[in-house]
């Protein structure tokens, strides 16, 4: 016979102000199976919890209902209290009298009646509860970092330095990401390469880091502490062990006119190439679609010249399976590279370029060796117009959000330009200057006051070519919208930062959620910014939203510390609220018929096929079996199962059924 204890909390005045707690306690005391029912000012307080513990001992209760605030608030508290008193924590349920009753209804009879119903419902439920033991799962202490940009690099190094193994996967032939393309960085104007490349080398040399460059994620399964990841190592057609990175092949390759991705199409590379001199790993890959041998079947110049005979035309993609405990997503962002604003003539006029292209023009290692020359004819532009918010903050034509970094890098561009072309004039069209950040505002002021960047507050309506000049038409809203027309030699669009290609597919592979713009979604915008809703997967850098370098690095270190914390335990305990397929005596073995329609509803591929064989090993029956490690307890399979052969602890069929009954039948 059930012996239930009910504990009604006043929550100070919060509940008792509108609910007659004493009456609730009185009425529930009469419910069948309730042997103890009290109300008290603060149940969560120490004396409150002691009341519960003592009652459990004295009346040896078989179940406890605490009617107080939301279980999302204090369920752990009271379950802990119960277990301390020797009662299985899962025999304790909470009835939400505060958020769902006293706070949302006025002080009147029906509010108290509702409270009684709510409590009675949980009393009936808890009678059906069964003792459960937490699930223990081991933790594989290896982290997977996806993306080798500055965020990925930082995260990897931080994790590796805590003494744990890291596997880094980078899609491109070299790590470094967008930061390696930048010329100088705001607000200090120190050279991007100079601060990044040492870190890249560190990654390559770190004993705890395994780097898979030119590789992508094929498949992911498993759960926190126990992921299984398949990595596709794309064929580089170069034997990395033999290759010394001498670069002879890259100089001899007859294919020389392939637009370089690293140079943003402003420079060329051969078919066998390293993206840039400081690349890590500094070993070439063959770009099959552009390689004469792969297209025409003859050439093999690289093979001939290679002193160590490292070329492998027959190399195949390789699938590597790794066991992972935690994952850091650091896949970064991209910029809107499109003829997005036809009226701005991007892609139509050679001298209308985007921010990254300007970075390459300004970079000492870039196609112009750092001289600002315009793409069309290589002339040094006298007047350069920079347009901020090209796509950002523009619900009518573009994206609604602010890309955050453009204000700063536009100021930087204006400065760099002025430093390199003293007689030139930079113009900047902007909406607002968003320079929040240490030394940021000062930086922008410097651009305006010392380098005389002409800031014009207003939008550009159109850019068109007229006898060799780019006519930029805009308005100056600070001069009551006076139309402005500038005859520019070059225009730089600060195009919006957007989610990287394939972000959506990747998110779906990893079961993490993403926002409307395909940026990965953090678990909580304020309190859990580096976690995702999927346990064991963390976010770093601009894959979550456009970010500058300091923010990306900070976030990466945050993610790394989360991983380190996770790896500090050998075992994780998980709530045992998971589904199970029933088993019973032969010849039935289970009421499951093995239709396996449940298999495809499971978001975690937790449903497996179990074969029941007789002692001669002949198959008797195939049944569903749920892997308790993988199951997260959504219960979708439970509702789907026609023969009611699956049930889920904590929300069993009989529990929820009883709740519905009890909730509606006053007695």
């Amino acid at each position: 016979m059930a012996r239930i204890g009910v504990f009604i909390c006043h929550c100070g005045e919060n509940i008792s102000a509108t609910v007659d707690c004493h009456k609730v306690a009185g009425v529930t005391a009469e419910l069948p199976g309730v042997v103890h029912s009290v109300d008290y000012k603060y149940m969560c307080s120490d004396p409150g919890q002691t009341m519960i513990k003592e009652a459990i001992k004295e009346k040896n209760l078989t179940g406890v209902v605490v009617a107080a605030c939301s279980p999302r608030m204090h369920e752990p508290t009271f379950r802990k209290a119960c277990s301390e008193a020797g009662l299985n924590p899962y025999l304790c349920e909470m009835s939400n009298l505060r958020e769902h009753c006293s706070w949302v209804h006025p002080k009147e009879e029906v509010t108290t009646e509702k409270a009684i119903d709510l409590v009675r419902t949980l009393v009936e439920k808890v009678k059906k509860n069964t003792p459960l033991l937490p699930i223990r799962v081991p933790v594989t202490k290896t982290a997977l970092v996806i993306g080798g940009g500055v965020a990925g690099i930082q995260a990897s190094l931080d994790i590796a330095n805590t003494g744990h193994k890291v596997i880094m996967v980078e899609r491109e032939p070299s790590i470094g990401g967008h930061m390696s393309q930048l010329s100088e960085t705001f607000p200090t104007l120190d050279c991007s390469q100079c601060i990044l490349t040492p870190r890249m080398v560190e990654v390559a040399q770190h004993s705890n880091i395994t780097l898979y460059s030119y590789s992508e994620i094929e498949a992911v399964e498993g759960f926190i502490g126990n992921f299984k990841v398949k990595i596709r190592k794309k064929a580089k057609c170069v034997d990395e062990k033999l290759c010394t990175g001498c670069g002879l092949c890259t100089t001899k390759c007859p294919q020389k006119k392939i637009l370089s991705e690293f140079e943003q199409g402003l420079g060329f590379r051969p078919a066998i190439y390293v993206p840039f001199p400081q690349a890590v790993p500094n070993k070439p890959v063959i770009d099959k679609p552009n390689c004469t041998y792969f297209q025409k079947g003859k050439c093999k110049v690289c093979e001939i010249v290679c002193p160590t005979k490292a070329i492998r035309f027959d190399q195949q993609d390789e699938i590597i399976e790794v066991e992972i405990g935690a994952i850091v997503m650091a896949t970064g962002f991209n910029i809107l590279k499109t003829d997005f604003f036809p009226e701005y003539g991007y892609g139509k006029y050679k001298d209308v370029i985007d921010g990254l292209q300007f970075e390459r023009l300004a970079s000492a290692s870039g196609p112009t060796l750092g001289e600002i020359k315009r793409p069309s004819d290589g002339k040094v532009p006298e007047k350069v117009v920079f347009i901020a918010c090209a796509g950002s903050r523009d619900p009518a034509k573009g994206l609604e959000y602010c890309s955050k970094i453009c204000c700063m890098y536009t100021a930087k561009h204006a400065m760099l330009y002025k430093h390199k072309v003293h007689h030139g004039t930079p113009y900047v069209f902007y909406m607002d200057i968003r320079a929040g950040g240490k030394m940021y505002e000062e930086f922008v002021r410097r651009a305006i006051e010392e380098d005389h960047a002409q800031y014009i507050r207003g939008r550009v309506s159109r850019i068109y070519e007229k006898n060799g000049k780019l006519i930029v038409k805009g308005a100056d809203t600070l001069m009551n919208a006076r139309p402005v027309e500038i005859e520019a030699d070059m225009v730089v669009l600060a195009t919006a930062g957007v989610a990287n290609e394939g972000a959506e597919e990747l998110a779906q592979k990893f079961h993490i959620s993403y926002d409307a713009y395909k940026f990965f979604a953090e678990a909580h915008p304020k309190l859990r910014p580096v976690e995702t809703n999927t346990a064991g997967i963390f976010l770093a850098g601009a894959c979550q939203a456009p970010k500058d370098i300091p923010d990306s690095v900070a976030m990466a270190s945050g993610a790394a510390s989360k991983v380190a914390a996770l790896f500090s335990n050998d075992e994780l305990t998980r709530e045992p609220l998971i589904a199970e397929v029933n088993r019973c005596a032969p010849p039935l073995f289970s009421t499951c018929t093995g239709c396996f329609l449940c298999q495809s509803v499971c978001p975690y591929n937790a449903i497996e096929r179990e074969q029941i064989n007789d002692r001669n090993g002949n198959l008797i029956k195939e049944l569903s079996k749920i892997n308790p490690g993988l199951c997260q307890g959504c219960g979708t399979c439970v509702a789907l199962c026609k023969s009611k052969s699956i049930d889920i602890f904590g929300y069993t069929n009989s529990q929820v059924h009883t709740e519905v009954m009890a909730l509606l039948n006053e007695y």
Partner: protein
Amino acid sequence: MKIGFYPGCSMKGGSREYKESMAAVAGAFGIELIEVPDWNCCGATAAHNLNKELSLALPARILALAEREGLSDIVVPCAACYNRLTVTKHELNENEELKNKIASIIGMEIKADSGILNIIQFIEKYILDKIEAKVIRPFNHLTACYYGCLLVRPHNILKFDRPENPMTMDNVIRKIGGTPIDWAFKVECCGAGLSISRTDLVAKLSGKIVEDATDRGAQVIVVACPMCHLNLDMRRPESNKYLRKNLDVPVIYITQALGLAIGLSEKELGLQRHYVPVVLKEKPADPEPVKPAKKVLQTQELEA
């Protein structure tokens, strides 16, 4: 097929040829235009600066009348009228209270659910797919499509084409064998309502439009708004004076271009009514090879 038609003041006056050509073209496609009975001024351009309710009541009445006639689609050739009607429809549907108020002001039931089409939408919806078959005299001219302001703005209400870089008219022209040119002034201001009060400004603004079109080799400017036409056509002497040039590129209505292509006579289309004589030069046999837009940037020079 019967379709509602709101002429607005200009169709009756300054731009009769617009109405004529439109009726002619519609007729050629078996479409009958039913003029909204007892229609009134749409309120452009002054009303919405003076009195919001008035500026809504005027178009509202037109809509109500159309509804009463059971006209589900109303074509509104004048861009200004089109803009007023559409904006009004939008505002009324946004705000039930306002709708009732306006209804009581005009003393009529109003649902504000009829489709309001500008001339291009009208062509796209009822004519475009049938047109190629009918073209007997391809409109073989380098054409500058001029949209002006009201046809495409405010975008969030009209939801019609791209405000800064509209292309719909260009497509229509292409359908009838024309070659739309890529030019810079397709949505610049022509001076519009200042046509009477500040001729000097209009001369300047319209002048620049005509000039750019001419510079880029346009043989004809096609418009879809009486006001634009007025300023580009009637004000030509003034703008030429301002430009110190003698530009004679003709300005015709989209409907007239269509009409010509399907072989209607100049008379039916009222071409003789224009100030700048409509002399259409044929597109040169092999035109300036229009450079294809290239994302690829040649960097040989750079590397030098």
